[in-house]
């Protein structure tokens, strides 16, 4: 489905990804974990070509996409939910979704999105910039869902949201789990454990662990060493329950 092999990516002079390698299996939710600044967002951006890899190889759906234009990579069937949501604030909710819908997309997808997020249908004519953070996150996820994507890349969907909203977002992602492959970046261990099948931990731009998410969730030492999480994750897990 997705394979990164020895990928190096720079932002200006900074060497962010220093030989990243991992694979994402079809139909599963792979969680990308790591401390702040480890290179999680850059990994997603490199896959999409937004911050192109300088060296290494990225294969997507069996084809190399390392040097491909972002829009071509997305058209292969990738949905992207960025870290800061990046909804178009001056456009209405409906316009945000219409813009995201690629020509030839199945109209039933829009109906599915409205079923999943009924609030977005009610607020269709509202400017996206006037929505709350949680509602904007719904728009960002919905934008990726209006097309039948083979891979969804979701960057920190819980970031900056109140626990009750995090729970709503988790439920929405749980609803789409199994319908597509998901690569999820998430600092919130409770959310990661609730959704993830597989886990990849990165540290200083390198892969340091690949395995199943349950193993990470159960290994406090691993969390403490690479995530600096431990208690914070447990507390978040309790607050969500």
């Amino acid at each position, binding site marked *: 489905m997705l394979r990164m092999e020895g990928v190096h990516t720079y932002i200006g002079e900074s060497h962010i990804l220093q030989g990243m390698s991992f694979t994402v299996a079809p139909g599963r939710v792979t969680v990308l974990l790591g401390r702040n600044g480890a290179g999680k967002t850059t990994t997603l951006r490199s896959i999409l070509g937004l911050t192109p890899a300088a060296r290494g190889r990225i294969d997507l759906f069996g084809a190399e996409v390392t040097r491909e234009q*972002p829009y071509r990579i997305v058209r292969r069937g990738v949905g*992207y939910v*960025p870290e800061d949501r990046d909804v178009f604030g*001056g*456009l209405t909710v409906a316009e945000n979704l219409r*813009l995201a819908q690629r020509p030839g997309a199945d109209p039933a997808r829009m109906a599915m999105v409205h079923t999943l997020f009924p609030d977005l249908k009610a607020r269709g004519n509202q400017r996206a910039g006037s929505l709350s953070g949680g509602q904007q996150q719904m728009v960002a996820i919905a934008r990726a869902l209006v097309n039948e994507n083979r891979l969804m890349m979701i960057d920190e969907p819980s970031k900056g949201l109140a626990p009750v909203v995090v729970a709503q977002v988790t439920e929405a992602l749980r609803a789409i789990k199994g319908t597509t492959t998901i690569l999820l970046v998430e600092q919130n261990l409770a959310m990661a454990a609730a959704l993830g099948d597989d886990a990849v931990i990165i540290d200083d731009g390198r892969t340091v662990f690949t395995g199943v998410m349950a193993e990470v969730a159960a290994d406090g030492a691993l969390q403490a060493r690479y995530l600096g999480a431990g208690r914070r994750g447990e507390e978040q897990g309790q607050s969500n329950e």
Partner: protein
Amino acid sequence: MSTLIFITLTGLALAAMYFLLASGLSLIFGLMDVLNFAHGAFFTWGAYAAWWVISMKTPVGGNASTGVFLFAIVAAVVAGAALATGTEVVLLRPLYRRTISQVLVTLGAGLALTELTAVIWKHDAKLFPQPRWMATTLTIAGARVPANRLVLIAVAVLVLAVMLLFLRYTRYGLIVRAGAENREMVQALGIDVNRAFTLVFALGGALAGLGGVFGGAYFKSIDPNIGTVNLIFAFIVVVIGGLGSIGGSALAAAIIGLSQQYANYYAAAWLGDFVVVILLAVVLLVRPRGLLGAQR
């Protein structure tokens, strides 16, 4: 009263010409963050393309027929759009994200294209024939107003309406509005932003070419610097109206055109341009994002 009406309609006609030039500039900057100093040359080439078509079919000193004038408009629009497309594809596309290089290359292209008109058609001004009905004057509430001013105003209003509809109701309009906010995210939705860039550049060039025809009719003559001179005011319109805002450009063009004419007539002939610069300074100090510009 008739003088006031005359000055007002003349000011609005001038504003309409500024708007035709500024609206393309504003769209280009809004989507692409490109300060296009070649835009004035598209205006000049539009004017010369129209003049060339008209002069081929019109006796010296005569009036153009309406049919020839309409064909001249098409020629001007095509010339502006073609030059703009060429500039974007050949010169600017390799330089995206290199702001200083873009400024320098558009400045150079503008100078070269302007100089090329002088090489081909010489520096001296050319009389710009227009249909008899456009050159005649109409009496409005006692004021005798040249019909070409009213036509220019009507064309600008029509262009404003079409552009607002385009931006609001078409997919490319959505792409332009979204791209002005966050170009990278538009790409991340699977949209070929480069194609949108070319379209916006071509649209801006076409509008500049259209402005060139009616600029020629307004001034009754053209010379190679006609675009450069008006480009300065178009940039001021874009800044005062708000970068990327078509409605803002229309509003700012009206304010500038009217201020220039009122100041020139009621105060001193040299004061109009000075008032425009004062207005620019005030807007930059009080509301740097312009009258209707979005926070960037």
